[in-house]
């Protein structure tokens, strides 16, 4: 008897699920964005504000990396791709729209006495020619090189800036997201890594034991990314397959307008110049 009751309940639940499912087909207007995990939280916040101003519109944001943003925008799986770097030559068939800027800075543990690294030294550390902090004026300790995983735009930007190939890099730790980089370096006195400057500045101000190193003599600060003097910076882009129309156009215009500058800053990025 009880088993029968159980079966009936289960069937009831299934039918209920199917019923709710059919209601879903009545969605009005939906915009799908996929790509860069760096951009995904910002895009989600912009999307929420856009939804509030445009009733009946839904903005769905999916994360997964810039490469995925490019692929999904091309295949049409996404209306808009999220790409946290400038488009490459072979990607110029896509249209890109910058919504914010972000700087990439080198970080080391706060206790590390090294105050500055030249570009040459950074290259030598990442290619394994320098493996001890002593060689660059630090303590006699092995260097833990933290690198980003394949497909991450921070990695591509870093490689491009220092004219390196990923196969040249001898890394001890390979990480994915930005915060993971900060946590890895904060937990290892001998580590060096590169992360988004805005979040690193925020985390350092919260007492996380990391230190941003200047690059080519320019201090790694949000201010220097804003005024364009910091050498390693990237645009955060929305990309579309063709010239955007209708809802996508409106969303892109909204994302580039001043009404989202507070959201951009809340995610520790630099808004476009006014």
């Amino acid at each position, binding site marked *: 008897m009880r088993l029968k009751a159980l079966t009936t309940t289960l069937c009831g*639940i299934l039918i209920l*699920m199917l019923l709710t499912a059919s209601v879903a087909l009545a969605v009005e207007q939906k915009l799908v964005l996929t790509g860069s995990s*760096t951009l995904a939280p910002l895009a989600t916040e912009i999307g929420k504000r856009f939804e509030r101003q445009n009733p009946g519109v*839904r903005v769905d944001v*999916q*994360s997964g990396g810039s490469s995925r943003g490019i692929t999904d925008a091309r295949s049409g799986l996404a209306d808009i791709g999220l790409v946290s770097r400038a488009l490459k030559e072979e990607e110029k068939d896509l249209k890109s729209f910058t919504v914010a800027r972000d700087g990439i800075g080198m970080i080391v543990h706060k206790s590390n006495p090294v105050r500055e690294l030249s570009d040459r030294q950074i290259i030598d550390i990442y290619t394994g020619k320098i493996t001890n902090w002593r060689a660059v004026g630090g303590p006699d300790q092995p260097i833990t090189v933290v690198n980003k995983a394949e497909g991450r735009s921070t990695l591509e930007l870093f490689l491009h800036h220092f004219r390196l190939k990923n196969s040249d890099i001898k890394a001890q730790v390979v990480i994915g997201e930005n*915060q993971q980089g900060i946590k890895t370096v904060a937990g290892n006195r001998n580590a060096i890594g590169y992360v988004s400057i805005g979040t690193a500045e925020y985390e350092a101000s919260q007492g996380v034991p990391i230190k941003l190193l200047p690059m080519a003599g320019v201090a790694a600060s949000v201010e220097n990314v804003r005024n364009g003097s910091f050498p390693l910076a990237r645009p955060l882009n929305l990309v579309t397959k063709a010239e955007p129309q209708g809802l996508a156009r409106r969303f892109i215009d909204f994302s580039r307008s001043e009404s989202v500058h507070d959201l951009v800053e*809340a995610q520790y990025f630099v808004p476009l110049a006014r």
Partner: protein
Amino acid sequence: MAEAESLAVTRRWLPEALMTLAVWGSALLVAGIFLWLLGDLLWRGAGHLSWSFLFSSPLNAGRAGGIAPILVSTLLILGVAVAAAVPLGLATAVLLAEFLSSHSRFGRLVGLSLDVLAGVPSIVFGLFGNAFFSIFLGLGFSILSGGLTLACMVLPILVRTAEAALRAVPDDWRLAGAALGLSRTAALRHILLPAASSGLVAGLLLGVGRAMAETAALIFTSGYVDRMPSSLFDSGRALSVHIYDLSMNVAGGDGNAYASALVLIGLLILINGTSLWLAEHWLNRRILTP
């Protein structure tokens, strides 16, 4: 003489003491690790936990606000996974344990494929789910895709534990059932399944635990959207994905990540407790009291 005797006593006594120490020490270590983990979560997360955290939507990329939509999505994903995996898994286990002999070639083929599936890393299930449910079947990023992907993932655990539980029922019971003229289905319903219930529930719990902890398989199937889902076709962020995003991708999200992790563990304990209680008071009793 006396010295030699005492040496012999020591020789007998020492391994015994070492063994006792090792057994108790290991058990304490295991319990200690769990308590440390729980203590760490409580210490850092409890301050962020409140009723409004459970019943409000996330704000500012999850740094502020609560987890209500994420909690709902998680339970829906879990519901879909269990609803799909339990009937399939139970039926397969019944086939393997009751209908086929342990030497049957087909049975071994099914068993082998299950064991291979059990060893597949979850990211592979995620990519499969994305390719099959989301794109090929056109379900898109949805709770349904996520739940069905998880169902595929927990099936091997479910089938294997259920099979073992059924096999553990003594053959005498089957024979007695047959002698009383019970049909196979009746014997299964009235004797075998209730008798195996604690094993079945244990398997279900293992599956649910794995499903709740899953991040990699869900980020590509049920997705990243943290809005309250209005149907199973909506994308919905699971708790584990939320915790991962807050701790690895959102600066300043650690507090809420700890609080969410605490909720996840609480949910797991709640589900475990309820299922164990159900197994004890409901299924088992069917056999003991006629």
